[in-house]
């Protein structure tokens, strides 16, 4: 029964010039990515940006129209999914409903011809890792969403793949559970030490979980890098708007507000409300009128009209900060470090982006 699986030397993933077209639509347009062995890598983007298609091409469910997929340096472009040393945690978990949890987890070991005793031992070990060993005899229908997710994870990891792919792994869980699973996923990835590649449209998830992330838009990769650099130094207007929120100022408005030409992004949390204190050195100070105050528990979001535009700023509710009210006149300040210049003036697609778009 053992199928000859292509065993790559390590879990690195290389995509070279990947293109995928469905009929007349281009789903993925010339993507190049290098994912290192043992890396926790996120593919972030709005729906329809091509990230899931890329994931499916790594798994082998889709064939690229052009380009090469390498696993551990071995070309697997035409290798079918059952012979790739890669497993997937599906968005709907895809647990087999007629099998117990143990049988589900044993499934991949069975197809690989692992002996009965060994199979059982490894399945129980995998279930113990996700703390569900006491439920091994249950059927998936008897589990909660979070538990199903963990079984799917155990089933995929039991075969000890070189790369684990996760398709919107936490999308179906509610907020509390999602936060718990984020911590758990991170810990499991550290323990097993293999490459994790996951797809998400949730920028928080991508920032918290991944070592590095790729931002997808319209079938292209807009930016690749560690979470911090993608957030602090977005490559363009799309990234600045999709990953977190940005005040984007361009042309005449940039000239008026920040005193420079070009397109500039300022993160809302980097704009401070000055009390009566003097402005710090090398800071830009602007008078503004508060037009809206949105209290969000841990933080407060304030919209402030500085004349040509309205800026968004957020501040943590740590106490001691003067409350602002709608209609207040306040002084805003930001340092030069808070300004990040964007290279492209023309965003490709802004439909789903939370960009605080500013127009004259």
């Amino acid at each position, binding site marked *: 029964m053992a*199928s000859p699986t292509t065993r790559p030397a390590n879990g690195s993933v290389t995509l070279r010039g990947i293109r995928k077209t469905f009929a007349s639509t281009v789903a993925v347009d010339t993507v190049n990515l290098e994912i290192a062995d043992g890396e926790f890598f996120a593919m972030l983007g709005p729906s329809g940006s091509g990230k899931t298609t890329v994931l499916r091409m790594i798994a082998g469910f889709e064939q690229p129209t052009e380009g090469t997929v390498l696993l551990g340096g071995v070309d697997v472009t035409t290798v079918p*999914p059952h012979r790739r040393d890669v497993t997937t945690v*599906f*968005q709907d978990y*895809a647990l*087999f*409903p007629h099998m117990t949890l143990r049988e589900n987890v044993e*499934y991949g070991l069975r*197809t690989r011809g692992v002996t009965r005793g060994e199979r059982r031992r490894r399945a129980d070990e995998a279930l113990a890792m996700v703390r569900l060993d006491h439920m091994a005899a249950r059927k998936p229908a008897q589990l909660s969403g979070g538990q199903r997710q963990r079984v799917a994870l155990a089933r995929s990891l039991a075969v000890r793949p070189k790369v684990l792919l996760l398709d919107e792994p936490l999308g179906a869980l509610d907020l509390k559970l999602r936060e718990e699973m984020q911590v758990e996923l991170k810990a499991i990835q550290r323990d097993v030490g293999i490459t994790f590649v996951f797809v998400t449209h949730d920028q928080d998830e991508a920032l918290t979980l991944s070592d590095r992330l790729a931002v997808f838009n319209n079938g292209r990769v807009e930016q690749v890098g560690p979470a911090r650099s993608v957030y602090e130094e977005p490559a363009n207007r799309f990234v600045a708007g999709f990953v977190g929120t940005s005040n984007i100022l361009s042309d005449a408005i940039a000239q008026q507000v920040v005193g420079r030409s070009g397109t500039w992004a300022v993160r809302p949390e980097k704009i401070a409300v000055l009390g009566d204190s003097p402005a710090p050195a090398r800071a830009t100070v602007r008078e503004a009128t508060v037009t809206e105050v949105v209290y969000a528990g841990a933080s407060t979001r304030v919209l402030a009209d500085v004349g040509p535009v309205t800026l968004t700023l957020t501040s943590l509710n740590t106490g001691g900060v003067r409350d602002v009210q709608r209609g207040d006149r306040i002084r805003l300040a930001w340092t030069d470090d808070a300004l990040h210049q964007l290279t492209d003036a023309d965003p490709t697609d802004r439909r789903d982006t939370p960009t605080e778009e500013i127009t004259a």
Partner: protein
Amino acid sequence: MTALVPTENLRAGRRPSRRRPAPLGYLLLLPPLAWLFIAYLGSMAVLLVSAFWSVDSFTGQVVRVTTTGNFGAVLHDPLFRTVTLRTVGVALGVTVIDALLAVPLALFMAKVAGPRMRIALMVAVTTPLWASYLVKAYAWRGLLAPNGPLDWITGGHSIGYGLPATVITLSYLWLPYMILPVYAAFARVPSSMWEASADLGATSGTTLRRIAAPLAFPGIAAGSIFTFSLSLGDYIAVQIVGGKSQLLGNVIYGQLVTANDQPLAAALSFVPLVVVLLYLFALRATGTLEQEAR
């Protein structure tokens, strides 16, 4: 956020008060229940009672004196036993043939065919249901006739009329009733299930055996209830293409109409009823019926 509050309350156990339906609501049940009790169970009860009566062999009148003689005859007469076994054999044969034809076709419709192809096949499968039973049975009579098309194609080696012809005709008649539930069963299995199996190293054959077949089984079971019970009660197709073969239906009909022994016919009618009940219990024991209901 506020929009979430009502649903949250529902989930967190603050159940909506367990309202009794208004008394008027029960009126909705009246017509169907009346129909069920009077027309269906009532006629069954009359049938059961009349099975314990007998016929005066001289006058031909029904004698309303309770006797178990009819059931004795049904159980012990070798002719009835042979016909019962033959009928159950035909019903099982039809069911197996339909399952073998339906599974690949349903799988193709659900997982391989594109949307247009799927609709075309769906139309092809269901259209015969609109045609009269008799027309379809006579069509087979024509096909199987001596010197008919099948004889001509096979050079005189057609199976002709008889039991095999009956099985083929019934399989043809009931095939849509098997295809539709099996198709529904396959269609319900998300494609990620297939992908997950391949992802975990299974070949297509293994996926078919370990994932697709068990998941489609409730559909096959549901379809088999139709093919099995419809075949068990059929007595027309066998008259048209069965040659001299007799099935339970013909025997019952013969007792009722030709021999004018209504009580014996009634007792015989309980044979297919009991067989179908046994079949349903057997299916229930496999647990597939509950799975289907879910």
